[in-house]
């Protein structure tokens, strides 16, 4: 079938749509696994029922997300071969290894121990049960490491040589692939952003329940206790992870200025090399002419971001593109990524990430329990906290209501930030699929027609849209009522070898 659309375009749309979608669930799964593990540990160690209720409540939301993350991940692995067979042949020797390791080491961990965790409440001693969720959390982190190592190879190929006979990339050093600076910084950046994302979700949903309780809605004190401890924990996680995201983001930018000057120049709409280079706040550009029409800038700030001083030159788009054209042939335009998407993706990533951090920092201060707080304003652990500006000054009702609303909204911020981050970093690498080694246009499957790809894109988009509605509906259904405080922990600690009587009890959990 001959259609007036390039195969590369359809394949890229599918990869973009399915990856951004997959990555809505991934960071939530990574971070909620850790948060749930922390809450269950608190329950096992203290025996306080509020931690048990919190564990169960966030555990349910975690599982609803994890299911989507797991199943959409299968396609991620398959589509390299389906739509990008030329890419797969070219880099399989290098790129396949971390993928196989991810499956063998991380996915088996995750999938096996999550089964034990879900169904094991009445089968495993509680310490062992708690260990299962920690192993799941470890699995998610390892999985992130391997797949980001594979992605980092595409951003900055290392540890390989080009085989003179086949012309393909061959692995020469697996340690470099797994531990190059790009991988390390990206892993740190992605994991901290993931924890910011999950923590923001917990902040948002806890804030919803505490705000309701604060307005005098009829609510169970035990529920409030579970939400309150969740809020405080998630605010701390969000602030720590948010700071980590910012620091690693800064480090990553410096690495990128060195390894992918084009991506960073595009992120800043810096057309010409400048010394010192300004940081762009807002610009409206003419891509055809290669210049900005409107530019609002902070002088020398970009030099500081790239090199840590206020005078270093930063390479511009035009010069970098001309250099690439000289090296690889073709014209200057061939080497310029989509400036609009790269520029705004970069900005929106930072905006949403930092907005999440700012709200969390403010929340951490406003809901503090004791620090610089007059005893009269302290609240019990089963009461919603007052929002305290200073030792004695409480936020007025209007501002307080809006603060809680902003806190609820925050749950969407890092999710948006993650999406923009990936759109930025993947589109900013174009026209390359593997930087300076293979072009995206050369990576597609030569034997798969564009018609078949459109069928695939349409079918997957339709399926994903339906599942998005289903999953969002379930999240709301399970988030809105709050923890089920009627649920009690097992009366006695289960043993691995139960008596016949105990063993034949109804299952604690069943599909």
């Amino acid at each position: 079938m001959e259609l007036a659309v390039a195969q590369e375009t359809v394949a890229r749309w599918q990869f973009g749509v399915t990856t951004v979608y997959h990555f809505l669930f991934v960071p939530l799964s990574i971070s909620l696994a850790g948060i749930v593990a922390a809450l269950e540990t608190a329950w096992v160690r203290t025996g306080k029922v509020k931690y048990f209720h919190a564990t169960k409540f966030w555990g349910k939301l975690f599982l609803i997300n994890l299911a989507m993350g797991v199943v959409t991940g299968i396609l991620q692995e398959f589509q390299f071969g389906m739509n990008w067979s030329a890419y797969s042949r070219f880099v399989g020797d290098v790129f396949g290894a971390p993928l196989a390791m991810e499956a063998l080491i991380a996915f088996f961990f995750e999938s096996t121990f999550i089964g034990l965790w879900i169904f094991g409440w009445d089968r495993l001693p509680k310490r062992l049960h708690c260990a299962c969720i920690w192993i799941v959390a470890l699995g998610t982190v390892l999985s992130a490491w391997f797949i980001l190592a594979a992605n980092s190879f595409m951003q900055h190929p290392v540890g390989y040589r080009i085989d003179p006979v086949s012309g393909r990339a061959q692995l020469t050093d697996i340690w470099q692939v797994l531990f190059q600076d790009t991988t390390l910084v990206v892993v740190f950046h992605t994991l901290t952003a993931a924890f910011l994302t999950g923590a923001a979700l917990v902040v948002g949903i806890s804030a919803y329940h505490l705000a309701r309780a604060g307005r005098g809605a009829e609510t169970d004190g035990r529920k409030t206790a579970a939400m309150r401890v969740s809020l405080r924990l998630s605010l701390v996680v969000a602030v720590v992870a948010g700071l980590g995201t910012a620091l690693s983001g800064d480090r990553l930018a410096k690495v990128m200025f060195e390894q992918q000057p084009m991506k960073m120049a595009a992120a800043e709409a810096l057309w010409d090399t400048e010394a010192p280079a300004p940081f762009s706040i807002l610009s409206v550009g003419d891509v055809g002419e290669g210049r900005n029409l409107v530019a609002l800038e902070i002088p020398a700030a970009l030099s500081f971001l790239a090199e840590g001083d206020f005078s270093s030159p930063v390479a511009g788009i035009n010069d970098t593109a001309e250099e690439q054209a000289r090296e690889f042939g073709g014209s200057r335009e061939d080497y310029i990524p989509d400036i609009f998407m790269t520029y705004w993706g970069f900005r929106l990533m930072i905006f949403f990430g930092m907005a999440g951090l700012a709200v969390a920092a403010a929340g951490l201060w406003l809901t503090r329990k004791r620090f610089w707080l007059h005893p009269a304003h302290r609240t019990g652990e089963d009461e919603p906290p007052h929002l305290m500006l200073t030792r004695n000054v409480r936020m007025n009702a209007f501002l307080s209501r809006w603060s809680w609303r902003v806190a609820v909204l925050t749950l969407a911020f890092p999710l948006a930030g993650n999406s923009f981050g990936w759109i930025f970093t993947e589109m900013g690498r174009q026209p390359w699929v593997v930087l300076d080694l293979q072009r995206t246009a050369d990576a597609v499957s030569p034997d798969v027609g564009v018609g078949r790809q459109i069928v695939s894109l349409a079918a997957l988009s339709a399926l994903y849209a339906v599942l998005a509605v289903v999953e969002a509906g379930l999240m709301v259904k399970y988030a809105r009522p709050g923890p089920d405080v009627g649920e009690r922990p097992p009366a006695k600690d289960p043993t691995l070898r139960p008596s016949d009587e105990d063993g034949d009890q109804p299952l604690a959990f069943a599909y």
Partner: protein
Amino acid sequence: MHLADLWFILIALLWTGYFFLEGFDFGIGVLTTRLLARSGTERRVLINTIGPVWDGNEVWVITAAGATFAAFPDWYATMFSAFYLPLLAVVMCLIVRGVAFEYRAKRPGARWQRSWERAVVWTSAITPFLWGVIFANMVRGIAIDAGKSYAGGQGELFNGYAVLGGFTTLALCVCHGTAFAALKTDGEIRERARRLAPVLGAGTLLMLLAFLLWTQAGSGNGRSLGTLVVACAALPAALFLSRLGREGWAFVLSGLTVVATFATLFLALYPEVMPSTLDSDWSLTVADAASGSYTLTVMTVIAAVFTPFVLLYQSWTYWVFRRRISVDRIPAAH
């Protein structure tokens, strides 16, 4: 033996392990119809026999595909782009199936639950059928051109031999699932599973014989004849043991049937990985589809270190959830 040959064996083991483990998962999914279940609670009994383990079983396919990618990039690239539409359907089925297990009980409505139950049945039937089609084509050979790419159409993939392969794989999974159900349930379902096994088994045996003899005639060799005999002997043995009430052994032998069947396919395939029907010079072989020796060495070390752990903790899961499930042990719907 070269490392590439070792990796051919390992990949064959991963795929075979996948069909052994998810084989009974698929079977259980199909059996939640009136074949074995007569009520909503009985459907839940069946689904919960695989509840804690299906996800771990499914990771075998992800590992098999990932290992193929790493060890034989050309095999992975040719296979996944050639079998495009069947694989797209497989992926969509696996997506829906996983979500169906997790989400079915998350809302109380009858319509909601029935919809997901139907999804489990259909996806559990379509997926093994399509895998059978894919593997049959791979063994028989497809129109691979000089550029290692598939030159044929998607319709050709549904030729007689491949469709027989598809139905055989599906039937094997259902038999294997019946043996698993007899082993893991109690009460009426267990009895029903034991009565159902010979009926299903007889039909499956005929298909299996036809498919494997066709395979043997097309691309067989001495080794594949050996596993063919094992496969065709293990299935009746499984049925016999099931009649005797030796459910554990019946399950082992139905598993052996699955293993021997896929072993036959891989032995018939070796030393090629993707034979070409256009020109045998264009066939992909183990030797020329393999990654470099460095990658294979790294992967061998990783596999040697981690596979024993995986087998150990996955087996432990089956031990933890070793109790039979009956209607009495299903908690009230929530």
